[in-house]
């Protein structure tokens, strides 16, 4: 049973993820460069051939992931059925997202050899969500 504090943190992190991916999608659609607060490799990473997975832009996949995480968290908090499904799906989603982020971070480190602030922030957000789930499950 995940405590309410953990749900609040998980929801906050997924909402931050939504805001971040919406920002990146808007910048891409407007053909503008996103602000790159740390380092300068954002546009190199975001415009590389690895910016899509299965033909879909990674920012869109990220947005769908964070929206789904927000909705599932909200369903778990409000108590919308089927609760068993949400309780099963949520950790699987986060585990999949963590592995995907690990792969994308590896690409930045070893293949593209440039770091993107927004990609690292998104990866950290997902890993933090995974840590919260692991900690709350072990309490």
């Amino acid at each position, binding site marked *: 049973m995940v405590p309410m504090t953990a749900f*609040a943190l998980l*929801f*906050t992190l997924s*909402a*931050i993820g*939504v*805001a971040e991916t*919406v*920002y990146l999608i*808007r910048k891409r659609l407007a053909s503008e460069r996103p*602000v790159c607060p740390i380092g300068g490799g954002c546009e190199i990473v975001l415009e590389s051939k690895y910016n899509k997975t299965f033909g879909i832009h990674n920012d869109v996949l990220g947005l769908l992931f964070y929206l789904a995480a*927000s909705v599932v968290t*909200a369903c778990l*908090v*409000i*108590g919308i059925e089927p609760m068993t499904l949400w309780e099963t799906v949520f950790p699987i989603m986060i585990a999949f997202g963590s592995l995907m982020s690990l792969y994308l971070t590896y690409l930045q480190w070893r293949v593209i050899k440039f770091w993107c602030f927004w990609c690292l922030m998104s990866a950290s957000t997902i890993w933090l969500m995974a840590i919260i789930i692991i900690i709350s499950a072990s309490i």
Partner: protein
Amino acid sequence: MNKSSYHILRVGLAVTFLWVGILIAKNPLDWGSFIEPWAAGFLPGSLHSAMVATAVMDIVVGFLLLIDFWTWLAALVAAFHLVVVLVVTGIGNVTVRDIGLLAGMLALMADSRPPSFLARLKSRKYA
């Protein structure tokens, strides 16, 4: 307002409104108990319906703030909502928190107002 501080304020207030909306949807009547008896008499429907509508409104406002879409309008609605909350719940331990949220929302509204709105105001002033 600095661009970074604007986004931090926007996302922070968005998360607050979304989370409060979810909590109200979880226990509508518990949240409805904060309403002063004199104000509850003015509700057009049941307390439960009014609180569910409030939850939906909070979630919609929070989502608009989060995706930075119609931010000015969302902040205006949220500021009005906070004024109503301050009036109908009376003075309590959490009143100062609502005042802080209202100030933040007004700052966001002032910073995200459409430029055409200001231009129209100025043109009327000197017409």
